[in-house]
């Protein structure tokens, strides 16, 4: 019984134990199953992410922005210094003989240039060796190396920036096939020797690294494979935890299962972080090559390739610009590993190790090189493209930027403002330069520190334009040829004007004087305010506003009498648009910063064509432009002679606003239209009139960008008639004091003056003679 009860007891306990253990087992199995399921599910989720990210859009490739390519042709207006500047900008190296694309040699005024091939909107420009000779400011001869004459050829377009997204990652995408063999080999040799054998995780390497780290009591070795490094960069956050490590390993395994080694290597080569340029993060070897050496990856020699591999371990620590010694040491370590692995010979390693780092002084094609111009490009692109397309699709944007003009303009403006601001701190300035016939924007300077991407005054400083508005007033007048011509007498005397709200306005001249009766051209050339207001009121404010709009003004205009003296606030860019229409004889071309857009695959996507629209009559514009030339010859702009010879016949207009707050100059040569503003951001008086401030900046800029002379052709509807300037009547050529005056056909004087010049010596006569000297 006892036995029985004992056994029963035992059985009971056994059963209880059994019950307990089976419950535990079941619990474990269940938990195990559940966690298995969870892991499986999680793996599926990770697999999805890996695939989705990897196969889909792997990199957001910022749009690359290029300046205009330099056109080379015999007799081109180009100096050897200019060519040299362009070659440097493009990262060409000076060598004894240019065997390779992207190099050149120079002997005095003769250059041998081995150009790179480059795909433009209209096709590929093949690379070739060119023989160029200069004489004076001209490219006198252009031949191939074999002596064949070349009619026209383009250099590659200079990369001037990129449009990268908010997270500031920039890269130039490269394909696996474009990754130099030695570079790929070095990368594997240095970072992950068993790359081609492992499945994403290298257990041995981890163990080795751990052991080494424990022995050294610090991290001396990393056990991560290239795949793990890629995963880490690609998918994971900066968080450092076991969880992340596990994720990283799992994803590395999944990635390896899905993709070929070459695909992973390609991804790595594009993803790896290799440097920092202010806010811009340099990703991938493609961009790093441009960033450090200013040239494409395939042009790098062994030493440079090794340096890029060296940077993988720590781009900041080994920054070749800031820490050249460290960088050299690390590069040479890479070279030694390559030699030890039999990838290069001892001699190759030695030669490469003795080479200089070869990084360029200025940073590569940062987005911030020409921030003001890039700003304009971005705004114009946003009319047609979404931000995400610009920052991710790898578009190639070909702009109208002339880096040479841009640099000259920046230099001249900075220097002149510094000079003007000796006792005027806080003085600022902005400039816009465009092709007068094409409307192509060549340069934009947004402030006196042009490299600084701050307030872009050229596009955003909306300031009263003062007398810059006057050409529109005179244009409106001369468009009524039955009432006005260049000699029409205008009263420059005190007046008061009542505006609609009843205010009385009494405009004054800049010199506080009244000049009596003056011929129309004189009133504009000397920028007389009272005469201009009289003329404008007589022509009609609506007419003036209309002409402003026809010239290209987009803003709504407040039609107050003060409009006649420039009580309208515009940006330098808007002013440039108005003066472009004048400069091209009444043909308005919207100012463009972009020529073409290519896809990442270099297929044409979009063109921004040259368009013209005749918006104001050519004859009236011709007359106005005649006077704008007089402004420079003998009017308020005559100080330009300090900078540019009167032979250039430039046309322009000064502008000054109340209390000397804004100083403007706008004008044009045969080929370029330019606008300069000088003033203060806080809108306090700058103490400079148009001719004391902006004109000097304008003159200095133009002096350095070789404007062509302005030779205006009279339109068909213009006739030139000998006129007696005093009476305004038709005169005989031989009459004393008779001058040739352009008129719109049908509106020249009919009556003849008697050929007696008895009022010789009058002020009026003197003034007129100045115009037609």
């Amino acid at each position, binding site marked *: 019984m006892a036995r029985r009860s004992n056994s029963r007891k035992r059985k009971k306990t056994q059963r209880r134990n059994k019950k307990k253990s089976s419950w535990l087992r079941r619990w474990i199995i269940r938990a195990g199953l559940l966690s298995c399921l969870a892991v499986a599910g999680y793996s599926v989720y990770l697999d999805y992410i890996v695939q989705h990210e990897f196969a889909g859009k792997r990199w957001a490739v910022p749009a690359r922005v290029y300046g205009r390519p330099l*056109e080379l042709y*015999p007799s081109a*207006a180009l100096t050897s*210094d200019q060519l*040299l500047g362009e070659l*440097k900008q493009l990262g060409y190296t000076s060598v004894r003989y240019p065997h390779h694309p992207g190099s050149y040699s*120079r002997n005095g005024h003769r250059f041998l240039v081995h150009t790179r091939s480059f795909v433009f909107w*209209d096709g590929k420009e093949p690379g070739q060796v060119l023989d160029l000779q200069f004489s004076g400011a001209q490219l006198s001869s252009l031949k191939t190396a074999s002596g064949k004459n070349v*009619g*026209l050829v383009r250099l590659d377009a200079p990369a001037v920036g990129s449009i990268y997204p908010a*997270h*500031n990652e920039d890269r130039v995408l490269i394909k696996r096939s474009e990754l130099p063999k030695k570079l790929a080999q070095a990368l594997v040799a240095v970072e992950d020797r068993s790359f081609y054998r492992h499945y994403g995780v290298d257990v041995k390497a981890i163990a080795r690294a751990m052991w080494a780290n424990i022995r050294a009591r*610090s*991290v001396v070795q*990393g056990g991560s494979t290239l795949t793990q*490094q890629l995963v880490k*960069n690609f998918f994971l956050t*900066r968080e*450092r*935890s*076991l969880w992340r490590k596990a994720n990283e390993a799992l994803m590395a395994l999944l990635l390896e299962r899905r993709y070929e080694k070459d695909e992973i290597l390609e991804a790595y080569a594009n993803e*790896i*972080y290799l*440097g*920092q340029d202010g*806010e811009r993060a*340099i990703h991938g070897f493609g961009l790093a090559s441009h960033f450090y050496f200013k040239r494409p990856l395939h042009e790098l020699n062994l030493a440079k390739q090794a340096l890029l591999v060296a940077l*993988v*371990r720590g*781009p*900041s*620590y080994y920054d*070749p*610009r*800031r820490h*050249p010694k460290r960088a050299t040491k690390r590069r040479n370590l890479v070279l030694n590993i390559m030699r030890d692995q039999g990838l290069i010979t001892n001699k190759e390693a030695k030669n490469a190790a003795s080479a*200089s*780092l*070869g990084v*360029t*002084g200025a940073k590569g094609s940062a987005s911030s090189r020409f921030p003001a111009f890039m700003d304009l490009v971005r705004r114009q692109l946003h009319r047609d493209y979404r931000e995400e397309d610009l920052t991710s699709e790898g578009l190639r944007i070909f702009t109208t930027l002339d880096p040479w003009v841009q640099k000259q303009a920046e230099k001249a403006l900075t220097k002149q403002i510094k000079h003007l601001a000796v006792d005027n701190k806080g003085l600022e300035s902005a400039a816009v330069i465009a*092709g007068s016939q*094409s409307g192509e924007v060549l340069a934009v300077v947004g402030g006196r520190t042009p490299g600084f991407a701050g307030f872009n005054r050229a596009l955003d400083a909306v300031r009263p334009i003062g007398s810059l508005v006057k050409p529109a007033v005179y244009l409106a007048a001369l468009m009524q040829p039955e009432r006005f011509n260049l000699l029409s007498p205008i009263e420059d005397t005190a007046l008061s004007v009542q505006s609609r709200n009843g205010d009385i306005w009494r405009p004054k001249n800049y010199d506080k004087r009244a000049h009596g009766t003056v011929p129309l051209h004189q009133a504009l050339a000397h920028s007389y305010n009272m005469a201009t207001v009289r003329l404008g009121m007589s022509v009609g404010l609506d007419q003036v506003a209309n002409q402003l709009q026809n010239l290209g003004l987009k803003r709504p205009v407040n039609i107050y009498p003060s409009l006649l003296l420039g009580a309208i606030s515009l940006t330098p860019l808007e002013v440039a648009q108005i003066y472009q229409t004048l400069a091209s004889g009444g*043909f308005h071309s919207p100012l463009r910063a972009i020529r073409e857009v290519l896809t990442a695959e270099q297929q044409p996507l979009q063109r921004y064509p*040259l368009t*013209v629209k*005749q918006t104001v009559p050519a004859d009236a514009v011709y007359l106005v432009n005649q006077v704008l030339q007089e402004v420079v010859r003998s009017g308020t702009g005559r100080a330009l002679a300090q*900078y540019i*010879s009167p*032979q*250039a016949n430039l046309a322009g207009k000064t502008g000054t606003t109340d209390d000397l707050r804004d100083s403007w100059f706008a004008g044009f*040569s045969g080929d370029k239209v330019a606008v300069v503003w000088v003033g203060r951001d806080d809108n306090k008086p700058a103490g400079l009139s148009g001719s004391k401030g902006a004109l000097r900046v304008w003159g200095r800029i*133009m*002096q350095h960008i*070789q*404007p*062509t002379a302005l*030779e205006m*052709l009279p339109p*068909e509807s213009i006739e030139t008639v000998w006129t007696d300037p005093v009476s305004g009547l038709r005169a005989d050529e031989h009459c004393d004091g008779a001058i040739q005056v352009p008129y719109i056909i049908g509106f020249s004087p009919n009556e003849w003056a008697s050929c007696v010049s008895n009022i010789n010596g009058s002020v009026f006569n003197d003034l007129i003679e100045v115009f037609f000297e």
Partner: protein
Amino acid sequence: MKRLFVTALILLSISLTGCLESAYRMGAPVTDRGHASTQKFPETTPVQPQEKSAPISSQAEKNQEVQIAVYTPPPSFKANPVMSEAVSDLVQTAVRQKEVGNMVGAAATMERALRIEPRNAHLWNQLAGVRLAQRQYSQAEDLASKSNALAAADRDLRRDNWLLIAKARRGVGNVSGARLAENRADFSR
């Protein structure tokens, strides 16, 4: 239970080493690879050029420094400029492109020519022809007018431009305007 404990211990040790490693990595300047997008690297020291600039360029810059002389532009042609070889090559290319119906290409080529000789009335006329072929009538008319504005005494060119304008006006159904333009063409003869 024991097994569980061992597993936990292993996990703990791994995580500890992981954390340790992380901590070291955080501190070590050698390990900033990746994650740059969120990291800011102060660029306080100005970057010194590594390569000495070539003596040529410094000479060039010096020249620019001392260049205070007033700039005198080269003499310009008042009449139509003689078409340079470069530009006539481009015109031929554009003509070929037009013949095979590549109007967009022809327009691009003509624009390239115009960048070289912006005041060459013949080039504006050619571009007008391309736009007319593309039935961009108003643009064709404006371009032909532009050509006329620069044509000076070239009567043949003027005539061609007026005929082009006439076609463009007919294209938009402006018959009376077209007749006027045709009259002007005759007048230019």
